[in-house]
């Protein structure tokens, strides 16, 4: 591996977890998410000259597109959210939040993942999703609101 490739490899590895979490939020199974991440890294290397700005949001946007490529099908409600709900021990409320995440519409899950997992700015999130900044803010607020409502319903059901 030459110096360019080594530097690129290090940047990819640093951004890989954020990209993986975004891919998983789209409902792609871990076995395929691995392929998507590898394909995204190939695509990123081929188009490295076109990068403008920070590496991570650029790579996350490539991974997102790769995951949404039409040849990848059967995007379903992610199972990883619920699996994770069982894995966490960070309090009952957090546990409940994670349990209810799969019930959100895909775009609401995605905006949460881009903002919280990939730690992207509102502008970067909006750019990746192809929406305006105000729309991204509104979507994020709606996602949080949906979670609160789902929590209310869940607790009401548990109490009755």
């Amino acid at each position, binding site marked *: 591996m030459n110096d360019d490739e080594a530097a690129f490899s290090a940047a990819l590895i640093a951004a890989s977890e954020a990209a993986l979490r975004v891919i998983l939020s789209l409902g792609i199974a871990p076995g395929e*998410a691995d392929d998507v991440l590898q394909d995204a890294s190939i695509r990123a290397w081929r*188009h490295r000259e076109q990068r403008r700005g920070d590496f991570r949001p650029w790579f996350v946007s490539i991974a997102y597109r790769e995951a949404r490529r039409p040849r990848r*099908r059967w995007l379903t409600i992610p199972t990883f959210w619920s699996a994770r709900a069982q894995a966490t021990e960070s309090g009952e409320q957090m546990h409940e939040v994670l349990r209810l995440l799969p019930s959100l519409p895909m775009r609401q899950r995605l905006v949460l993942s881009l903002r919280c997992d990939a730690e992207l700015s509102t502008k970067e999130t909006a750019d990746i999703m192809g929406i305006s900044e105000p729309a991204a803010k509104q979507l994020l607020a709606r996602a949080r609101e949906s979670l609160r409502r789902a929590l209310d319903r869940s607790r009401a059901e548990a109490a009755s």
Partner: protein
Amino acid sequence: MTVIDDADIDIAVSDRPLTQPELEALSNARSFMERGGFATERQSRSLAIELLAGGAVAVLVIGLILALLRPMPARPLPAGSRPTASPTATPEPSSSPTQTTVPLDIVAQLNLGSHYVNAMAVSPDAVWLAIQGVNYGDAGTLIRVNPKTARKTASWTIGGDPAAVAAAGSFVWVANGIGDGSEVLPEQNTVEQFNAATGALVHLYRVNDPRGLVANLDSALVVSASTQEQTAISVLAGGSSQAIASLSGVLQGTSTSAQSGLAVCGHQAYVALTISLTTGANAKIYSVPPTGGAVRGIATVPADYAPAMVCDGTSLYLPAPFGKAGQGSLVRVDVPTGAVTTLWQGPAPQALAVAAGRLWITSFADIPTDESVFLSSLDPVTGVESSTRRFLPAGPNRGDPDLLIPGASGFWTVAGGGNLLLHIAVG
């Protein structure tokens, strides 16, 4: 209202630990990155495709030899002649016999290299493949294939995200989707009507996010997303569009005209629309005449059932690829009554087709380490699976052989990770 602030929600999302399979995926990808696979993978994948193609040829040769040696299979029921079970008499899923693998009879094939098929349609004199651009943002290509030889006979430029293709009479229609919305794609949000013989563009229709097409002799029914939660059904003809209905839910799916939530049988088109709710999702199925007319609700199925629907004279069939314990299933919807019954349970079903009185299905092999895909058939009344299966050549990217369309003899399918067109005879 629950008292949980924004920061707590964000922390819950960002701090969640990865599961073991997710950690393994991350580890695999990082190993790939660490060894510089991103810079060398193109060559190794080309080699893999060549090996796969070589393997497919070997399978073809072996298959031909064994086909000559084996006894003739029992004659299948002719299409449309199967007995119709009343909904109350529909049996529970039956256990299938022990299966043996028989060779895949590949009549002809076309390797598309680095191009991936998004949608396919089969007409009496051509197979039509709609292919996305190699790079996101590039224009796509419509390829006409000779069904006898599987050789390409013509190709034309189409939109960058071909979502569906349909052909009938003198025209072929292509629905150009919007992709992931991150950048403007060539001809996005349009339906193109081409002269099937010359490739001349006859009309270009503006349609927001078109997702499914049904071609008639001189018109097409298009199913499109008018908003994120609403679907429009329109008839396109002579350069203009006539709205038929606006319905709640979206046509999701597999982006293929044959394998999306859109099926045509007799004089009805059936549309399965997924209704997303914060509490889950259902798919509601409607019927509409392909040339336009009254829309009628048929049934509602749980969201577990992927909107990849096929039909015969009286029933609709939908697969649920991911069920409990890795098992998938199929449901049958009785069109006259709307009754929904589970017909079959087994390895993750991908593509469905109805032909020769049987329900054909491609599934992922139920061996965890084996990513190959096999083709088998079911009795559409009892759900009993045939005792034989045929393995399809799978490619480096699993999940693509979900294009399965009956042709004049056998099936057309896309395997090899989405770039290998196969014409398969099933005897």
